[in-house]
């Protein structure tokens, strides 16, 4: 991706002709075009980030703006790394990220692999499958809460109809062991199409002649799948996993609407902890430190992953 960028920039070297244009020079124009975006991002993204870094070293509380702010050094960071609850939240997050990615990749890839057969009407059904991912996670979370209602919800009804368990005992959202799964189910329902779409692009990018060659060599279908289809689609699958991983690490809307972190703290992912610390307990300094740790974690993991992805791509 970035190599292509470099090529384009190299090609963009101004022609001698372009340099002599009337009015603004090309260089001036380039900055005129780019600087508003950079300034906006500096103001709304980078400045707040640096402010958060500053706050993370203090005991500031946003609901008591007049209190004297004390510099705590690394005390907030030390407390977070020693805080049992934070570690549990991180574990919960990891648990969600793992299961949602596993399920979405398996189902998404299978669906893409089937759609790639181009059966009659595949375009229509593909579009229909894509609808859930276009919705607002908050609105989705809210109406799944309705579907999950033990007495009146469609989900509990269908499960109890199929399994014979009375609907009152299918407490998806308030049962400690079911609540995490209620979120994993909704997230998988919503985002499997996303993974499917990227996998589909991967499968379509495999040139036909490779299969023809394999067919000539009398490779079995199974062999073709493992030696051609999967490896050639792998960079795309990994890209989908990257995007879903980053998104699910930040997961907030759906959890907040479905369970709000409960029952107890069984579904309290990092973002929910962050919200509780920052906007309910108003421990601004402490939560800023946690935010920074999270950001560094996402950034670090994403970077390591992108390196691996690039290796796979170059194979």
């Amino acid at each position, binding site marked *: 991706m970035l190599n292509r*960028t470099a090529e*384009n*920039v190299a090609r963009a*070297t101004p022609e001698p002709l*372009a340099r002599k*244009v009337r*009015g603004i020079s090309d260089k001036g*124009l*380039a900055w*005129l*075009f780019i600087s*508003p*975006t*950079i300034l906006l*991002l500096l103001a*709304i993204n980078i*400045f707040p980030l640096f402010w*958060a870094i500053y706050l993370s070293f203090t005991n500031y509380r946003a609901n008591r703006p007049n209190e004297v702010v004390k510099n705590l050094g690394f005390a907030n960071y030390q407390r977070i790394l020693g805080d049992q609850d934070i570690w549990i939240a991180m574990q919960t997050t990891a648990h969600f990220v793992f299961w949602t990615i596993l399920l979405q990749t398996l189902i998404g890839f299978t669906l893409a692999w*089937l759609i790639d*057969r*181009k*059966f*009659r009407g*595949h375009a229509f*059904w593909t*579009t*229909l499958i*894509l*609808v*859930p991912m*276009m*919705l*607002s*996670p*908050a*609105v989705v979370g*809210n*109406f*799944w809460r*309705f579907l999950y209602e033990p007495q009146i*919800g*469609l989900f509990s*009804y269908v499960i109890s109809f199929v399994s014979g368990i009375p609907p009152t005992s299918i407490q998806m959202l308030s049962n400690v062991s079911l609540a995490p799964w209620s979120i994993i189910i909704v997230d998988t329902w919503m985002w499997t*199409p*996303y993974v499917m779409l*990227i996998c589909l692009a991967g499968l379509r990018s495999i040139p*036909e002649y490779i299969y023809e060659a394999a067919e*000539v060599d009398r490779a079995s279908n199974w062999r073709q799948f493992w030696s051609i289809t999967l490896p050639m689609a792998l960079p795309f699958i990994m890209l989908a996993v990257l995007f879903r991983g980053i998104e699910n*690490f*930040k997961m*907030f809307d759906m959890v*907040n*609407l479905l369970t709000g972190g409960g029952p107890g703290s069984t579904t309290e992912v990092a*973002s929910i902890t*962050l*919200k509780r610390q920052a906007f309910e307990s108003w421990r*601004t300094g402490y939560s800023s430190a946690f*935010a920074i740790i999270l*950001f560094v974690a*996402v950034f670090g993991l994403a970077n390591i992953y992108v390196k691996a992805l690039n290796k796979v791509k170059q194979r």
Partner: protein
Amino acid sequence: MSLTTAHSVVAPSANSKRIAGAIIIAYALISIVPLLWIFATSFKTPPDSIAYPPKLLFQPSLEGYCNLFTTRTRQTPEYINSLGPATGFCDETTRKRNMVIAGPSNFLPRFVNSLIIAFGSTFCAVFLGTLSAYGFSRFKVPLADDLLFFILSTRFMPPIAVAIPIYLMYRELGLSDTALGMILLYTAVNVSLAVWLLKGFIDEIPREYEEAAMIDGYTRLQAFWRTVLPQATTGIAATAIFCLIFAWNEYAFAALLTSGTAQTAPPFIPTIIGEGGQDWPAVAAGTTIFLVPILVFTILLRKQLLRGITFGAVRK
């Protein structure tokens, strides 16, 4: 595989196509059930919506839509009888449940907020994005790769993490709970997508067009305006719709940074309460109204979808 029917030796057999089709159709139908259910619920009466077993067949009613747009108070039958005749369908339905309309609900203003903020931020993001994308695509910008990566990386941050300082910053600047503040914020979030997507689209337009225009005596700016912009219209439209969908659906910032006047629909819909809990038909009605634009856009966008959701990293 018979040689007469197959165009290529590797075309899937008719049978495997049929099985694949059946599985995909089954998946599509099951995955669409929750949406159909919410659509159906929006036409139920409150008692029908919480009936057990869930009602598949019911007398359709617009009560949910009526409840969505109004607030109601419970009154004694005597008081209701003392009122004049009911004016209109909504009034009549409400009175049947011993209630009178107390005034409009907050849904409409929230919906309007969603429109203003989504369209406002989309316009700004696409405007800034087009300029930057052209800048990155056509000029030799120092540290271009680093700047582009910086622009992309602003999307890595959990919204809650930046929400704290933005909350404080907005409080100082008087931007908290204002549409302007939300437009600025969503513009900043969307501009990264806009730059990356539009750069891809503009890269595909041959630069010979501008060169030809400049030989004809146009300045760089005029060449951009007269040749590049018209060529990039499709890309700009697709980018705009992606930005619009994001801003339309966003919840975390909206929930944390707005409380009243600038609140959008996503944090509002879950708060629609009826008597004794959520008024599910009204919630479903709000959800349905809220989803319609997105469904239309999804169908329009089919071809660009992949590009948009991957920042242009994958093309179809």
